[in-house]
C-alpha cells in the first residue's frame, strides 16, 4: 500500500506537465481509490515503471493509476495502455481480464492480449471517457465531476480525470468536436445523395439555414448548462481551440453549400456565417418558446439579411 502511495508521489514529481495543485487533487482521489485496493503486493508493478517516472508523458501516471485501480478488480497485472511504445509482451494477461462480466473493458477485443489493432491509444481512451461523461452533464454541469462519473461507468477509477489537464475544457471541446464531426458527416451524406441525383439540391440560403439549425439542435439536450460551456470556451487558454472548431464547422457548412470562392469572398462569407451562428446560439440559450421557434425565426431573419446584403453588393457592382 505504501509502495503504491510512494509510486504516486514519484510519478507526480516526475511528470513535469501537470501543475502541482492538480497533482494534489489527483493524489487525493488516488488515495481514496487506493483504500479500495486489495492485495496490491500481488500486482506486478513493473520494473519498467520507474524509468518511466522521469518520462514527461502526461498520460502515464494517470493511466497507471487507473490501470492499478482497474487491476484491483481483476487481480492481474496489465500493461498500461499508454505504453504502446514499450514492448511488454511478457505481461500479456488480458486473457483473464475481458472474461469478467463486471468489466466493460471493450478495448481488448482480442483475448490473446497481443498489441496491435485492438490496442487502445490514450486518445481513444480519453474519447471514450469524455463521451460517457456527457450523460452526466445535465446532473453535474460541465465539470470534472461529470468526467469522473463518466469514467466510473466505464469501470475506471475516477482518478482518471487526472488524464485531462484541461478538466472541464476538455469535456466541452470534445463535445463541440463531436457535434461538428456529426454535422460534417450528415452534410457529406446529403451531398452524396444530391450528386447521385437521389435528392434535390437546396438553395444556398435554405441550405445554410438547415445546416445551422441542425447543428444548434445538437445543443438542445444540454441547453440548460450550455451558458456554462460557452463561458468555459471563452477562457483564454481555450480560445484558440474553440476558434479552430468554429472555423472548421463554418468552412464545412460553406463547402457543402457549394462555395468554391478563391478570393475575398472566402473570408467574408465565413465571417458572416460565424456571426450568424454565434448570435443565434446566444438567442437560443435564453429562448423559452416551444421547440425554440423564436430561435429559428431569428436565424431566418439573419440569413435573409445576409442574402439581401450580398444581392445589394452584386447590384452595386
Amino acid at each position, binding site marked *: 500500500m505504501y509502495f503504491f502511495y510512494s509510486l504516486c508521489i514519484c510519478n507526480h514529481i516526475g511528470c513535469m506537465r501537470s501543475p502541482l495543485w492538480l497533482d494534489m487533487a489527483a493524489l487525493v482521489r488516488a488515495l481514496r481509490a487506493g483504500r479500495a485496493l486489495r492485495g496490491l503486493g500481488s500486482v506486478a508493478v513493473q520494473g519498467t515503471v520507474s524509468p518511466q517516472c522521469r518520462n514527461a508523458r502526461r498520460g502515464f501516471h494517470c493511466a497507471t493509476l487507473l490501470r492499478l485501480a482497474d487491476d484491483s478488480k481483476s487481480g492481474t497485472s496489465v500493461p498500461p495502455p499508454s505504453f504502446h511504445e514499450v514492448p511488454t509482451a511478457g505481461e500479456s494477461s488480458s486473457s483473464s481480464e475481458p472474461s469478467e462480466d463486471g468489466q466493460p473493458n471493450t478495448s481488448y477485443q482480442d483475448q490473446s492480449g497481443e498489441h496491435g489493432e485492438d490496442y487502445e491509444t490514450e486518445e481513444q481512451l480519453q474519447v471514450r471517457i469524455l463521451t460517457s461523461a456527457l450523460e452526466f452533464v445535465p446532473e453535474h454541469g460541465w465539470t470534472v465531476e461529470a468526467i469522473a462519473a463518466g469514467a466510473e461507468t466505464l469501470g475506471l477509477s475516477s482518478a482518471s480525470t487526472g488524464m485531462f489537464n484541461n478538466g472541464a475544457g476538455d469535456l466541452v471541446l470534445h463535445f463541440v468536436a463531436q457535434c461538428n464531426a456529426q454535422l460534417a458527416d450528415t452534410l457529406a451524406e446529403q451531398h452524396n445523395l444530391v*450528386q447521385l441525383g437521389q435528392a434535390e439540391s437546396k438553395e444556398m440560403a435554405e441550405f445554410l439555414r438547415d445546416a445551422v439549425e441542425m447543428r444548434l439542435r445538437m445543443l438542445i439536450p444540454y441547453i440548460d448548462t450550455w451558458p456554462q460551456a460557452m463561458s468555459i470556451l471563452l477562457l483564454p487558454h481555450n480560445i484558440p481551440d474553440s476558434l*479552430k472548431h468554429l472555423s472548421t464547422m463554418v468552412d464545412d457548412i460553406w463547402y457543402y453549400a457549394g462555395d*468554391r*470562392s*478563391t478570393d475575398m469572398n472566402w*473570408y467574408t462569407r465565413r465571417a458572416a456565417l460565424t456571426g450568424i451562428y454565434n448570435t443565434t446560439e446566444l438567442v437560443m440559450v435564453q429562448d423559452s418558446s416551444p421547440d425554440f421557434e423564436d430561435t429559428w425565426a431569428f436565424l431566418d431573419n439573419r440569413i435573409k439579411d445576409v442574402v439581401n446584403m450580398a444581392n445589394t453588393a452584386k447590384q452595386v457592382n
Partner: protein
Amino acid sequence: MLRGSQQTILLTAGQPCINSISAVPFVRGYSVLPPTNDEEEKSMLHRMMRVDHAGEYGANRIYAGQMAVLGCTQTRPLIQEMWDQEKKHLSKFNEILGDNRVRPTLLLPLWNIAGFALGAGSALLGKEGAMACTVAVEESISEHYNSQIRTLMEKDPEKYTELLQMIKEFRDDEMEHHDTGLEHDAESVPGYQLMKAIIQTGCKAAIYVSERDVCVCTDHLEHKRAVFAF
C-alpha cells in the same frame, strides 16, 4: 468518416453529375493534388497552392495594368496573348483551391493593387518598360516554380507526378513569356538592371510573405476528427 477519406471519395469517384441543378462542381476521376491523410504533407501542399495561386493572381493583375496603359498601342496583341495564358493558369489554380478546400491568401487585395500598379507603372515607361517588367517577374516566378519542383522531387516524384507535370508546364509557359519579353527589347529600357533588381526583390518579398500567411483560426483541427472514427 474521416474528412480526409471524404475528400478521397469526392475526388476519386468518377461519377458524372446527373443533377445539373447542383451548384457544386462534379467529381473528377483524378486530382492534381494526391489525397493524403498526413497533416504536415497536407499543410505543405496547401501552402504551395496558396502561394502559386497568389502568384498567378498577381501576374494577372500586372498584365491588366500593362493593358490598361498600352491597350491602344501596337503591343496590345502581345500583351493580350501573355495575359490569356496567365488567365488559364489562374483558372487552373482556382479549380485546385476549390476542389481541395485550400484557403486563398488573405493578402489578395494587396496583390491586386500592387500588381496593377506595377503593371501600369512599368507600362508608362513605354513598351520596353512593360517588357522589362515582364522579364523580371517571369524570371522570379520561374525560379519559384523551380524550387517547388525541386522540393517535390526530393520528397517523392512518383506520388506528385500530376502536380509536378502541371508545375513544369506552367514554368515552361512563364519562361516563354520571359523570352518573349527579351525579344521585344526589354533590355533597351533605361535603368534596366536597376528596375529588374527592384522588381525581383519585390517578388521575392511577396513570395516570402505569402508563404507565411498563416490564419490561426482556420488551420483546421483535422487530427481530432480521426478519433471519432472509432
